[in-house]
């Protein structure tokens, strides 16, 4: 980003807390239909979010937040993300996420009687997102 881009307000709000409220340059998030990047002046859009990593660019910094379901309202002046759960990397217990992944994989492999397939799949995806975010920025994210 050579020229200075216009900033806009990003709010990530969950029932437990306001996770983020600051002015940023760009947001990239995971919707149910794929990734979406938002810059200032994006057309107003309301969309359902999937389980995935949200990245926002603030000057030269890239911050990452794990979003576990929710929806977003992109307005003219601000982007509001209403998430069920939003976690910063430093809030995530890596060990716990790893164990959750193991548990979910085992359940999916064993195909036990009365397995709630959707639920196990969801648990697996949540644990993967949590671990992905711990791993730090991917090379493709570098500006």
């Amino acid at each position, binding site marked *: 980003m050579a020229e200075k881009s216009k900033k806009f307000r990003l*709010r990530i*709000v*969950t*029932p*437990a*807390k*306001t996770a983020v409220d600051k002015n940023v340059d760009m947001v990239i998030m995971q*919707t*149910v*239909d794929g990734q979406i990047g938002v810059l200032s002046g994006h*057309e*107003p*859009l*309301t*969309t*359902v979010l999937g389980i995935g990593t949200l990245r926002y660019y603030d000057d030269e910094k890239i911050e990452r937040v794990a979003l576990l379901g929710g*929806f977003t*309202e992109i*307005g003219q002046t601000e982007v*509001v993300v*209403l998430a*069920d759960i939003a976690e910063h990397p430093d809030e995530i217990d890596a060990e716990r996420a790893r164990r959750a992944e193991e548990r979910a994989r085992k359940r999916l492999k064993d195909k036990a009687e009365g397995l709630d397939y959707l639920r196990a799949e969801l648990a697996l995806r949540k644990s993967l997102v949590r671990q992905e975010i711990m791993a730090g920025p991917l090379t493709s994210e570098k500006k």
Partner: protein
Amino acid sequence: MATMRDIKGRIRSVTTTKKTTKAMNLVSSAKMARARGKLNAASPYFSLVRRAISDILKTDAKLIEHPAFEGFRTIKKTLVVVIANDRGLCGGYNANITKLAANLAVQLSDEGKEVAFITIGNKARDFMRRSGANIVKSYFGISESPSMEDAREIVEEIVEQYENGDYDEVYVCHTQFVSAISYIPTALRLLPMSAEDFKDEDDRKIDIMKFEPSTEEVLSYAIPKYLGTAMFECMITSAASGQGATMTAMDSATENAENIISDLTLMLNRVRQAAITQEISEIVGGANALS
């Protein structure tokens, strides 16, 4: 006349009671602070979810063809959710909220509707059962410190029954938290939703709004989220005001205990004085008789 021993015994017992009520007062004030903290942390989420729905409704009035909105069926069966405490010792709190629920039930059945209840909190169940209400389900152990997950679970079940046509209307009787000593028992109509409910938001202009994947899908995602949020809000404000009521009740109980102790101490002193006076007059009488 009570003996000194009796009075001393009573003072001891009231002092113990006072210690208990004092401790309960402190515990519930801590719990209330926690519930208030949760409420404050969640209130931006509450208002933004409301605003999101309000924005969706503003973009296109035709959207209100979602079955969660009113006007799709005649209302014959009503479900009333009553939220109260698990325990007593909170003054008129439980009675106030269940009275509201009972009055609402009377009003609804006067309108020719069938009424069923879901209770949250032991005392809600006990009070409603006593008034002969038809309770279909009771939850307990979650009134004091409700979580979003609890609220979602309850709402999911209710929404399913609403969609199946088991109920045509859902009310939630809860209390709005005003301050530690004040709350307002309120009946909120959760379902069907009315576009009017979302009119009071600020007058933001939404010109065009795109929806992905589609308006229907966004709305059918956002509405259950809103309902879960609304239920959670009801539960958390009830938890805060329930603890507030306990705190106030225990505060006045402590004060009463203090009054009783001071009355009893006064009485004890009188009795002791009388005993001494009597002893002196006996000695004086005995001495006079001898001389």
